[in-house]
């Protein structure tokens, strides 16, 4: 695919992703000037989805690295397959091979367990590398990523340096559980994805849950937007909106009235205190009064 702004916009539409100018431009730039894209925004606003959409757009593989506390190089980059190496040693003993003969094999690709980062780099074609929730990883890991993101090469002491034949398209997401270092921010393009406007969300619902009545989709989008304005412990994500829309279809709801909302609120709100707060105010939220 040729990387032009139009092609990216077209690709996003084909991948059923409703984007605004901001998202479109950021994705286009990430591909055009070959820079990692750091995406921030509230949970459930569609950050991870961007990576999936880019993969779909480029018609390529998505390699995902889910970050968590304590994630280290062994599980992110590569690890020697120790068991296999041991077996090889034992087999070598039986065959009476000299150490030189065995050791030259022991540290070859055959005994290397490729983890997501190495897989993305050594892939024979451009892939999309999603480093999800980088804020959950430790600072040391972040520092280690810096080297990788600037050079796209890894040195494995026993094997030498592995250089990327094709730079992967890198997408990082963060929920701001902790502040990322300036150094990482500097190396990435930045995109902030907020919750969609009611109108965008309506279009998302119509796209993903076409069975839902048109005016009901609009009302649902308005209602969810109203919920997000309230100070909730966990505002509903887009995925939850879609679940809710599907539930409304299955329940055969015709009008979004208080009773319908009340019986399905569990799909949108996952904390009891949020539910209590919303039920107290339910009548005041646009969309629910109809």
């Amino acid at each position, binding site marked *: 695919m040729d990387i032009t*702004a139009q092609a990216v916009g077209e690709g996003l539409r084909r991948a059923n992703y409703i984007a605004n*100018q*901001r998202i479109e*431009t*950021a994705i*286009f*730039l990430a591909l*055009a*000037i070959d*820079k990692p*894209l*750091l995406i*921030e925004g509230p949970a459930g606003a569609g950050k991870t989805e961007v990576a999936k959409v880019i993969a779909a757009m480029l018609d390529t593989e998505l390699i995902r690295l889910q970050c968590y*506390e*304590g994630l*280290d190089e*062994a599980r992110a980059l590569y*690890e*020697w397959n*120790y068991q296999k190496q041991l077996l090889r040693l034992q087999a070598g003993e039986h065959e009476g091979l000299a150490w030189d003969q065995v050791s030259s094999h022991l540290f070859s690709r055959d005994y290397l367990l490729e983890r997501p980062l190495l897989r993305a780099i050594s892939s024979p074609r451009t892939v999309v590398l999603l480093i999800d929730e980088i804020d959950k990883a*430790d*600072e*040391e890991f972040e520092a280690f990523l810096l080297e990788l993101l600037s050079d796209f090469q890894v040195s494995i002491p026993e094997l030498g340096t592995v250089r990327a034949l094709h730079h992967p398209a890198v997408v990082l997401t963060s929920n*701001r*559980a*902790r*502040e990322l270092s*300036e150094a990482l*921010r*500097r*190396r*990435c*393009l*930045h*995109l*902030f994805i907020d919750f969609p406007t009611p109108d965008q969300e309506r279009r998302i619902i119509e796209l993903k849950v076409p069975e839902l009545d048109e005016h009901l989709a609009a009302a649902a989008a308005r209602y969810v937007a109203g919920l997000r304005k309230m*100070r909730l*412990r966990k505002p509903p994500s887009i995925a939850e909106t879609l679940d809710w829309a599907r539930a409304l279809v299955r329940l055969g709801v015709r009008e979004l009235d208080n009773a319908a909302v009340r019986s399905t609120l569990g799909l949108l709100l996952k904390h009891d205190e949020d539910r209590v707060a919303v039920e107290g105010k339910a009548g005041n939220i646009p969309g629910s009064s109809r």
Partner: protein
Amino acid sequence: MRRLVAQIVEELRAADIRISPAEAIDAIRAVAAAGFERDRMREALAAALIKDEADRPAFDRIFTAWLRRTITTEARDPGSHTGVIGAGKKSSADGGGRPDKPPESASEAAAPQSTPPTEDESESASKSKTQESDETDNSRDDADDSGDQSDQSSYDIGAGSGESSGIDAIEKARLKAIERLPFTNYSELEFETARIALAPLIRRFRVRAGRRLRAARRGRVDFRRTIRAAIQRGGAMVDLKMRARRPRRVDLLILADVSGSVRYAATLMLELSAGVRKMFRRTSSFVFIDKLAEADFEDGHLVMTPPLDLYARSDFGRVLAELRDRHAQLLGPATIVIILGDGRNNRRPARADILGEIARRCRAVCWLNPEPIDRWGRGDSAIENYVRHADLLIAATNLRELEDAMLTIGRPRRGGGSAVNPAPNPVGRFA
């Protein structure tokens, strides 16, 4: 184009947004790739330069001003480029409506110009502004600097950015000074300045506070990682891996006195804490005078529900009782209660026993006092009564101290957990 991007980078830097040379280069590549259609160019520059959503409003403002100035500078340029002038005038008339390709034409126009005529231009431009003479000199120097950095022939546009950075320098010094000005000396004007100074402070605060959550060098051993690492060497040597320090989930409850004597401090603290809301599991903010009200920020304005009688006199005792009785669910073992107030109770019952009860129920009670230390305990101040029950009493008499105090509260305790360190000698505690 390079020069134009360099210009906006400089203006952003003047507005205290940190941009590295590498990012500036990215911005040039980004604009080159995205083209000059206004919205797309704006998003391209933002993606490359703005790495914190909090900076985005400032960027939008600077971008609009930059675009408009670029166009008007072009329009002022006598000689050729008639088509460009027409376009520039039109779009500056409708407030920079849809100038599709102005920056490109501006750069084309600026490139062939020789230095002398543009310097004249810059001078006349500076004179035409109603500026004080020293400021104009200042700005000319800055314009020279910026010219040297980017390109020799950029004086015509450099003058514009130079002026603003000259003013910014004064502004910056003023903002720095306000950080140390005691709250008690505030006027309405200084309060407004302090609010402006608060924005970069919040950013710095977030980074400083976030840094405290980094992984531990000691503490609990991560058994799984240790064994995995050892296996690679056949278990010959063990290199202990430690479990990262997990930020304990902490709720924050802020209770701020907004009566006349301390309202500036209270508002600023509420704003500061609003910036770090995400670092805590839940933050609840209350303000009070003689009654309790929930506090919220909407568009930078403090909103109280229900509204308080601003001419009432502080009554800490009653407010504490109200908090205990009506918001008991917020006072759990994970809650840190931060009280901001001078403890001047207008000789009403202090009810320090209630504070004691709250302190027993919660993780910690911290009291920030915006009054100068030498006035604590004098007159109608009941602070000695309260301090017996607080884990921490900190003086927060100016913005800087306020930030430090908030950091002290967020400091992780040894061995893990972001929580108040019940120090044996809290700052300024009474003997």
